C-alpha cells in the first residue's frame, strides 16, 4: 500500500458480526403472551428485525435490537391482540458506569455488529461523567431536513500525517485519525492482540504492542505495528526495534500516572514469562520512572538510541498529564520526537490503584488545549503530531478531542468493548478476564476467535469513520485537519447556560 496517498484508500467492507453470546443484552425486552395469533404484523412493522416468523409462529428473536419508545411504529401498540408488551431490561441497568454507561456499551456493541451507529434508542455519543467530554457539545449548522442523508458530496479526507518534522524518517500517512494504543501481551490475550492488529492493518493504520514483548504471531503485520519501549524494557530487543516503523516510549500511563506497570503473578503464564524473559507466576513490575532519564537531555539520549538502531523509525513519546505537561511536550519535540502522545486517566486495562485512577494527574480535556497552545506559542505545533488517548469512547469524543487541539487519537478500551467487554473491572484478578479478552489463560482466551474479533473492531472503526464524515460534512469541512484546535466548534454546557442566563438578564 502506498502510505503517502490515502485519497484512494479503500476501506474494508462491513460484515455483520453478531454477539458471541446467545443472549445479547439490550435496553428493552419484549414480552409476547399466548394471545399471539401469529398474524405477522409485528414482523412486518419492525425495521430492526426483532421479530421472526418461523413455522407459523412468531418469536422475539432479537430483543436487544428493539429501540423501545423511540420506535416510529411500535409493534406493541399495533398488535391487534395486545400480545406484546415492552419492558426495560434489568440486566441493562446493572451494566456500565459513569464513563461507559450501559447505553455506550450497548451502542458500541451495535457498531461492532452492524458497522453503523444505532439509529435510535441509545445515547451513543456521550457518557454520564458530568464533565469534560460529557459536557462538551459540537456546534453544527442546523441541518436542512434530509440533506445529510442525501449528501453525496466528496467524502472528507480523514487522513493524518504522522511525521510532521519532515526529517529523514518514514513519511507515514494513516487514512484515519486514530490508531490502536498499547496493550501488552500478558494484559490481553494473543487473540485480542491479533484482532486489534489485523483491524488496524485493514484500516491502514497502526496498533501498539504495549510493554510485554513482540509475539512472533504479529510479524506478518510489522508495517502496522508500533512497538513500545517502557520502563521495564520487557521484550525489547534490537531486532524488535528494527522491525517496525514507529517506536513508542512510554514514560507514564494515564491509568496509573507515576506508578509504573504491574502485571499480577497470576497473569504471568508460561507464554508471558517466555516473552518477557521472566519467571512464571511472579508479579512483574515495570518501575516508574525511567531510571536513566532525569531531564529532557537524558530523554534526548533515549530518542537518539532508538534512532541509532532504526534511523527511519518515527519516535512517539507517551506521557501522562501532570501540571507541567506542556513543558514535557515541548521538551519531547526538542529531543527529536515525531509524536507526543498524551494519555489521560480514563483508559487502561491493567491493575491500577483506584486512588491513582481517580486523583493523579489532570483530565485529558484540560491537558490537551494547554499543550496545543503552548506548542503554538513555541512555534513548533506544525512540526509535531499530538495524539490524545485515555477514554476516547465514541466518534464524538474523537471530534471533540481534535477540536481541543489533538491531531488524532489512540484507542484502547473501545476495542475491548467491541470484543464484548462489559467493564466489570476484574481484568487483573485471578485468571483474568472471564470473557476471554484481557487474559492469557489458554482456556478462557479461546472464547474470542481472531476472525470474529478482527471484524468486530473493523466494524466499529467503520461506524466511527462514517459518523466522523457526517460531522465534518455538517461543519462544511473537507478534511479532518481543518478541525484541529477549532474550539469554536465546541460549547461547554455549564458555561453556555451561564451566557444565556446573562443575556436574558440584560435583554
Amino acid at each position, binding site marked *: 500500500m502506498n502510505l503517502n496517498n490515502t485519497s484512494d484508500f479503500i476501506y474494508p467492507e462491513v460484515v455483520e458480526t453478531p454477539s458471541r*453470546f*446467545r443472549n*445479547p*443484552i439490550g435496553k428493552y425486552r419484549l414480552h409476547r403472551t399466548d394471545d399471539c395469533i401469529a398474524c405477522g404484523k409485528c414482523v412486518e412493522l419492525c425495521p430492526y428485525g426483532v421479530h421472526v416468523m418461523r413455522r407459523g409462529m412468531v418469536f422475539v428473536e432479537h430483543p436487544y435490537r428493539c429501540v423501545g419508545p423511540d420506535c416510529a411504529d411500535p409493534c406493541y401498540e399495533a398488535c391487534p391482540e395486545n400480545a406484546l408488551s415492552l419492558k426495560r431490561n*434489568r*440486566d441493562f*441497568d446493572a451494566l456500565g458506569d459513569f464513563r461507559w454507561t450501559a447505553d455506550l456499551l450497548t451502542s458500541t456493541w451495535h457498531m461492532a455488529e452492524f458497522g453503523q451507529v444505532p439509529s435510535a434508542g441509545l445515547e451513543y455519543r456521550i457518557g454520564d*461523567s*458530568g464533565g469534560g467530554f460529557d*459536557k*462538551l*457539545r459540537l*456546534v453544527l449548522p442546523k441541518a436542512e431536513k434530509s440533506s445529510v442523508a442525501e449528501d453525496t458530496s466528496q467524502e472528507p479526507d480523514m487522513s493524518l500525517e504522522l511525521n510532521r518534522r519532515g526529517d529523514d524518517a518514514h513519511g507515514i500517512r494513516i487514512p484515519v485519525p486514530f490508531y490502536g494504543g498499547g496493550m501488552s501481551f500478558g494484559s490481553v490475550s494473543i487473540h485480542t492482540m491479533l484482532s486489534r492488529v489485523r483491524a488496524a492493518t485493514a484500516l491502514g493504520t497502526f496498533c501498539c504492542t504495549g510493554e510485554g514483548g513482540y509475539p512472533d504471531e504479529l510479524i506478518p503485520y510489522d508495517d502496522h505495528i508500533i512497538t513500545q519501549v517502557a520502563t521495564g524494557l520487557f521484550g525489547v530487543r534490537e531486532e524488535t526495534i528494527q522491525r517496525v516503523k514507529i517506536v513508542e516510549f512510554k*514514560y*507514564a500511563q494515564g491509568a496509573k*500516572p*507515576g*506508578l*509504573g506497570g*504491574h502485571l499480577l503473578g497470576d497473569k504471568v503464564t508460561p507464554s508471558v514469562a517466555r516473552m518477557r524473559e521472566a519467571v512464571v507466576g511472579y508479579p512483574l513490575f515495570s518501575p*516508574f*520512572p525511567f531510571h536513566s532519564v*532525569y*531531564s*529532557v537531555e537524558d530523554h534526548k539520549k533515549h530518542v537518539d538510541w532508538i534512532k541509532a538502531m532504526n534511523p527511519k523509525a518515527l519516535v512517539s513519546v507517551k*506521557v*501522562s498529564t501532570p*501540571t507541567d505537561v506542556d513543558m*514535557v511536550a515541548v521538551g519531547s519535540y526538542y529531543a527529536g520526537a515525531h509524536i507526543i502522545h498524551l494519555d489521560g486517566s*480514563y483508559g*487502561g*486495562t491493567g491493575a*491500577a490503584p483506584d*486512588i491513582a485512577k*481517580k*486523583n*493523579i*494527574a*489532570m*483530565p485529558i*480535556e*484540560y491537558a490537551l488545549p494547554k499543550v496545543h497552545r503552548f506548542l503554538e506559542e513555541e512555534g513548533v505545533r506544525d512540526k509535531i503530531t499530538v495524539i490524545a488517548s485515555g*477514554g476516547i469512547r465514541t466518534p464524538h469524543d474523537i471530534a471533540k478531542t481534535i477540536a481541543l487541539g489533538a491531531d488524532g487519537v489512540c484507542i484502547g*478500551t473501545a476495542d475491548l468493548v467491541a470484543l464484548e467487554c462489559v467493564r*466489570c*473491572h*476484574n481484568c*487483573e*484478578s*485471578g485468571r483474568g478476564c*472471564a*470473557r476471554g479478552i*484481557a487474559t492469557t489463560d489458554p482456556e*478462557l482466551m479461546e472464547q474470542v476467535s481472531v476472525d470474529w474479533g478482527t471484524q468486530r473492531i473493523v466494524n466499529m472503526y467503520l461506524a466511527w469513520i462514517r459518523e466522523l464524515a457526517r*460531522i465534518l460534512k455538517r461543519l462544511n469541512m473537507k478534511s479532518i485537519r481543518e478541525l484541529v484546535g477549532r474550539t*469554536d466548534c*465546541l*460549547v461547554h454546557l455549564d458555561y*453556555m447556560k451561564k*451566557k444565556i442566563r446573562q443575556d436574558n438578564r440584560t435583554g
Partner: protein
Amino acid sequence: MPAKYVIHTKMVPHRFEPITRSGVIAWEEGCLKCAVCVKTLCIYHVYDHRGLNAYQMIDSIDNECMNCFRCVQSCPKELIHKSLNPEFEAIGDGYWIPNIISKLWYQAETGKIPVSGAGYPGPFSGPGFDSMWTDMSEIVRPTRDGIHGREYISTGVDIGRKPTCLTFSRDGKLEGEVTGIINIPLPIMLRVPSFGSIAPETVKGWAMAAKRLATMLAVSEEMVGPDLEDFAGTLVPIVKERPFQEVGISGKHAMVEVDRATAEAASREDIARAGSSVIPVVTMPLEKGIEERAFALVKKGFSVLHIEGSRQSTFQDSPSLFLKDGVRAVHLKLIEENARDQVTLLASGGLAMAEHVAKVIICGADAVYVDFPLLVALECRMCRRCRKGLSCPVHVEEASPEWVALRTINLLGAWHNQLLEVMGAMGIRDARRLRGEAGRAMFFEDLDESTFGSLGELEEGYELE
C-alpha cells in the same frame, strides 16, 4: 534515617456479609436441565460456593459474583439475570456514598489498597475534594523505585510547637531542651466518632490500634475509664466546659483537647503554664472567618489547632464551602502572618478516603483526625439508627477489642500505602513537604472555566450535538 515505618496487615474477616451493588436472580422455573448448565461454567465457581446466610437473609452468591455476565448471556432460557440491589443504594447518604463505604469495608477486611482494572469509571469531578487532582512527575523529579524497593518515603509529622531556631553552646552542644513536640509516624490520628453504637470495648480496640500504630486517639474525657489506663500516652482526652487552668494537670496525657470558647477565655499565663506539661489542642468549628480567629489563638500562645469541618466535609455554617477551602484559608493566613511553621494544623470532618488525607495536607494541614471511617471499618453502614436509640444492624458494640484493633490497623495500613502512592507519584519523600504544596495540585475552579469558559457561543442557525 529512622527505621522504615511499615503497618503489618492481615486478613480480618467480616462478621456480616457485606451488601453488594447488584445481585444474581436465577429462576428455576422453565429450566431445561441442560447437560452442561451455564452455572457450572462460572470461572469463579460462585454457584458451587453458594449458600444462604439465614440470619441476614443474604445469598452468598451476591458477594462472590464478579459481574462477568457470562451466565446471564448464555442461559438458553434466559433464566439468569443481574439486578441492582436497592439495599446497596440505601447505604449511607449523599456524601458517605455506598461505593465509599463498601471500599472502606474491603480495606478494613484485607488491609489492601483497592485495585481494579479497566480505567477510571467515576464522575469527571465533584464538590470538595473531588474537585482536586494531585500532580505526578513525568521526566524530571523522579524519586522512587517502583512499588517494591521504593526509596524511603517518610510519612512522619510533628505535632506541637516547633522552635523557629535551635541554639548551640560554643562546644556545639544543643542549648536547652526541645520540648512539647510529638512525632507520629503517619499524619493520621484517630478520633472517636460523634455517634455510633460504641461500647467501652470499641474504644479500647481503637486505643490498642492507635498504640500499635504509634499515633494518638482523641476521646471525650468521660469515656476515659479505668480499662484505658494502659493507653494514657496514646490518648488525647477531649475536655469540655472546664476552665483552662484545670486542663492537663494530671500529667498522664501528652495532649489534651479543648474547645474554642475555653481557649479564647484562657489567659496567656495559663497557656504558658499548661504548655510545660501538655500540648493543648484547640478544636475550632470550621466557620466563616476561621482564619482570623485561628491567628488570634496563635498570637495568644496556642500552637496546635484542630479545624473541625462537618461530616460532609463542609463548613459548619455553610454547606457550600468546603474543608479544603477552610484549611487553605487558615494555612495562607498563618503564612502571611509569618507564623505558619510554629503551628500544627489538624483537620477533620468528612475525611472518608485515603485521597482526602493527601488532599487536605496539600491544602495546608499537617495531619488529620479520622473518625467515621473507624466506625465503617467495623462494618457500620452509616444508617444512624443508633442516634435514635435503635439497635445497630451490625452490632458494632459487641465486637471484641482485638477485632476492632485489627480492622482499624488494616484500614490505616491501606490508607498509609495509598498516601505513599500519591506522594511517590508526586516525587515527594516526606509528608512534611507535602503540606501546603498546592502548586503540585490541580483545582477544578482554576482549570475548568479557564479551559472551557470561553466555549459558550451558540449563534442563530446552529445546533448542538
